[in-house]
């Protein structure tokens, strides 16, 4: 592998790690929103 390939691999790794973290953050926000909706429905039924 030449040095440009290593450089490319390093920058791809940065973006992949960042994307995974942002995706997990978004997924947790969505899950929490669903929980709030569920709780609201539960309270409305009472």
């Amino acid at each position, binding site marked *: *592998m030449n*040095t*440009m390939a*290593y*450089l490319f*691999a*390093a*920058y791809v*790794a*940065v973006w992949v*790690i*960042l994307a995974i*973290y942002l995706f997990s*953050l978004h997924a*947790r*926000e969505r899950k*929490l929103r669903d*929980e*709030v909706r569920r*709780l609201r429905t*539960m*309270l409305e039924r009472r």
Partner: protein
Amino acid sequence: MKDRGEGTFDAVLGAAVAAGMVLALYMAFLVAPRERTMGDLQRIFYFHVPAGITGLTAFAFNFVASVMFLVRRKHRWDALALASAEVGVMLFSIVLVTGPIWAKPAWFVWWTWSPRLTSSLVLWMLYVAYLLVRNYVSDPERRAQMSAVFAIVAFADAPIVWFSIRWWRDQHPSPMLETGGLSPAMWPAFAICWAVFQLLMIYLVRRRAALEGVRHDLDELMRSAERSA
């Protein structure tokens, strides 16, 4: 969940981080000069070093927030501690992946157990353990208290990471930022990348801490709903 002012601030901050990332790439690839001995491979430095410094800053936030939690016993300090530890782990993951990718062509090995590399790996593992341990304590008060104590102890490794290349002989490049080893032509690219990573860290910590705050409020609501049932 969030008030409108905070939401707008986060949206502006997010846009600034996205624009800053484009600028950082432009500076690192097109403005910074080609290094004489390492060639283009040295450009890894523009994301590797800022990620490391910003990761250590996030762990310092975690330390301060943990101390503040033990003093004040307010949940928002625990949420800030958790958020900064998580973002710090993400940033140190970047450091621990890009470092070996640089090391392989430069040193002909992916990894060496030098003081800087070993202490960095230990630091990353300590904060991964911090995040895992939190999942095993169900009582929120006890979890926050235990995590705060763990975080204060874990932070003892951060100065070792920072000073390792000053205290011991190490294969890792010497601290070129303070010793003038970085060419003046490389400074603008480095400064912009560093500033963008700091902004990114602040943006992610705010988002993660807000998420934790909402989760805490929701848990409280669930508990009171169960009690009144």
